[in-house]
């Protein structure tokens, strides 16, 4: 029957699709499927200030505004790690799903480099939108313009 053959083909296609999604541990460890250079530019912004303390305070305030709870903060390293795992915000089964690390580093004499990494439901977030929104909120918190790195 025609529809029977169609179904079989469909199943084979889906199996292939699922197999293609399989990765080795090494590939997962280094997240090889994403372009590192492109991702870095999505995740980074340069701020025209050398005030690390003010910048870190703004990062922390922005994260708290967005409903994150802080997991780890280190001023010397300039690292802030936070997570948002409220089940009432997202799907009830996706508990402990949204994590974010923000690093603040000196860039030259008068600038700071802010880099954010977002992880959602066991995957790195590679869409530019969440990063843009985060940096927009950060800019507002600091009254400063964040540039894209060249």
């Amino acid at each position: 029957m025609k529809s029977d053959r169609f179904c079989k083909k469909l199943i084979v296609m889906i199996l292939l699709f699922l197999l293609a999604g399989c990765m080795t541990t090494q590939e997962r460890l280094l997240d090889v499927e994403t372009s590192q250079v492109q991702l870095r530019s999505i995740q980074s912004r340069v701020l025209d200030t050398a005030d690390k303390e003010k910048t870190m305070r703004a990062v922390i305030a922005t994260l708290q505004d967005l409903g994150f709870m802080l997991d780890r903060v280190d001023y010397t390293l300039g690292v802030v790690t936070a997570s948002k795992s409220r089940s009432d915000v997202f799907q009830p089964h996706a508990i402990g799903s949204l994590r974010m690390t923000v690093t603040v580093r000196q860039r030259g004499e008068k600038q700071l480099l802010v880099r954010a990494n977002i992880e959602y439901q066991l995957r790195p977030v590679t869409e530019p939108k969440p990063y843009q929104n985060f940096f927009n909120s950060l800019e507002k918190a600091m009254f400063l313009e964040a540039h894209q790195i060249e």
Partner: protein
Amino acid sequence: MLIARPVSKPLTRLRGSHAATLCCLLLLGGCATVPDLTLSPELLAQRQLQTRRFETNDEQKIIRTCASLLQDTGFTIDESETKLGIITASKRRDATNVAQWIVATLLGVPPDKDQIMKALVITSPVGTSGKQVSVRVTFERIVFDEENRIRKIEALNDPKIYQSFFEKLSKALFLEAHE
């Protein structure tokens, strides 16, 4: 094929197009929409609720008082970075609730057993002259059921919680100043 297949019945068999639609829905269902991290009016209202300003330029004193207030209310301090005005604290408490227990039993799911309550305090100097310090506190809880699985994580948004926290903080600051 060794397995004998029943004669196909028109009602139970899926047509090709139906199968394709179902598969597409299944695949789409697996894709989680990434939260876009925008500041919704809801989140801004929460900020309003969780923030108070104090007329002082001594941020260190405020953060010390917050730490002792958290300890007074049974929290243990997990993480702190006083240079950036941060304290995180938590406590583990009983979460049993008669109403929830009845509902859970009727539904046949394990009822709530205990919970981790978390607090995050962030202070920062505000105002042009730096004469004020803002304090923001956020509470949330992680509820575990009787099989020790996480059942839910929720923000605590009852205004009363925050009012009473800030009342206590004001009192503690006042007392400390007049000791």
